[in-house]
């Protein structure tokens, strides 16, 4: 069992979602973003696994749960380039890398307390300046988002 590969863990899932290539330090952010501590279907959470692509990665396997567009958008913000596998009947029905869009609307809060978006009933808008490194800039106050402290709405 010690050498069991993530692929085998995927195969064990009948229906659900496998979120792969999560940076190890973001695994529990993903858990809290998806509210996984409140659901009662089986969940497998792996962290600090070795990976070819990344130094160390995390993987989350959730039974009988599929992600919404909105959840994918939020995931792209906290952990750019993670891979989402949708499993149906033990097979990978859909596999996609969740990438940052060009702009992000209403998903995150601006961290600048003096930003207008924190004082008016309005939608936040962030321009994605650098997709690879996940650099986001508030379109209103022009401040960059500090990645270690992203606040999801």
């Amino acid at each position, binding site marked *: 069992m010690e050498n069991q590969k993530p692929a085998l863990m995927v195969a064990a899932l009948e229906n659900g979602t496998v979120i792969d290539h999560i940076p190890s330090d973001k695994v529990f952010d993903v858990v809290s973003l998806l509210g996984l501590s409140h659901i009662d279907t089986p969940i497998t959470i792996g962290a600090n696994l070795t990976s070819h692509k990344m130094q160390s990665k995390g993987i989350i396997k959730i039974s009988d749960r599929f992600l919404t567009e909105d959840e994918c958008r939020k995931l792209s913000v906290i952990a750019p380039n993670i891979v989402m596998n949708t499993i149906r009947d033990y097979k990978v029905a859909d596999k996609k890398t969740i990438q940052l869009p060009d702009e992000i609307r209403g998903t995150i809060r601006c961290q600048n307390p003096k930003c207008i978006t924190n004082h*008016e009933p309005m939608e936040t808008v962030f321009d994605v300046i650098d997709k690879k490194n996940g650099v986001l800039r508030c379109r209103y106050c022009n401040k960059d988002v500090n990645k270690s402290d992203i606040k999801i709405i």
Partner: protein
Amino acid sequence: MRKGFTLFFFLFFTDKVIHNLLNLLHIIRNFEDSKHYSVMDKTGRSLISLEGLDRNDIIRLLDQAAQFEARPDRKTLDGKIVATLFFEPSTRTRLSFETAVNRLGGRVIGFSDAATTSSTKGETLKDTIMMVSNYADLIIMRHYLEGAAKYASEISPVPIINAGDGANQHPSQTMLDLYSMRKTQGRLDDLNICLVGDLKYGRTVHSMLTAMRFFNPTFHFISPDELRMPEEYKEYCRKNGIRFEEHSVLDHDTIAQADILYMTRVQKERFTDLMEYERVKDAFILKNSMLEGTKDNLRIMHPLPRVNEISQDVDSNPKAYFFQQAKNGLYVREALICNALNLL
């Protein structure tokens, strides 16, 4: 005879074509004009920041301002009402804008302090803007929150001019700085500019860097260590090929090469270490004696209000330019107002 007729016809034809082409160019230019002001802007004529302007846009605005300097009193705004909404008091900026409107023959409504408005009763900015846009043809606003003017421009049916939004943007100040530099130096290209004082929080010095990227400047950043130019702006300079040197003392050798000496306030409240403030506060004060041996064309600028960073004995030096600089703000603002209302 026939040849002559053909030639005539050809001339007539080309004339019409040229006329149409000119019309088309005019339409494209107008479209580009509005595009440059702000992308999300509802009216297409708001001025929120200078970011979208290119070299030609800047020069065109400065040329227009020069025409207002030649003849500041006009009736261009006859019958127009301009609102000045100052959610944060700024007497100098407000007086300058209101004078510009008055010189153009327009009327002013508004408030000079949020304490006198309903925003203190919890009214949203949106509601205030929508209410005022019922009355005014143009809104000039200053706000303590960053991004307030941009948001207003997205919802307002009348154009917005940003007169300062927190630490973010203050485009009319930057334009008057550029105007003053060009006027005193006869050009904007290839200037040697010393920026002195608070380069960390100074909004005006940051906007100047971005607006000057088209004009091949050499900057000297002179500041206490705690208030150095932030890394993101130095990175901006490197990316845009803007030369700069950093200095931690205001020394004569650096001033001696300068065309423009741009002083800013070193405010006590900006320091985390008050001992550090006490140590450096006098090191960034310009005294008249320091101006000996500087270039004849050197001019000393300051966004005002000054506290003590330029000693009073500098005022009578012909190189002192900060009061004229403020006056230039009037002409620049006349040009910005007429642009926003598409009256040029």
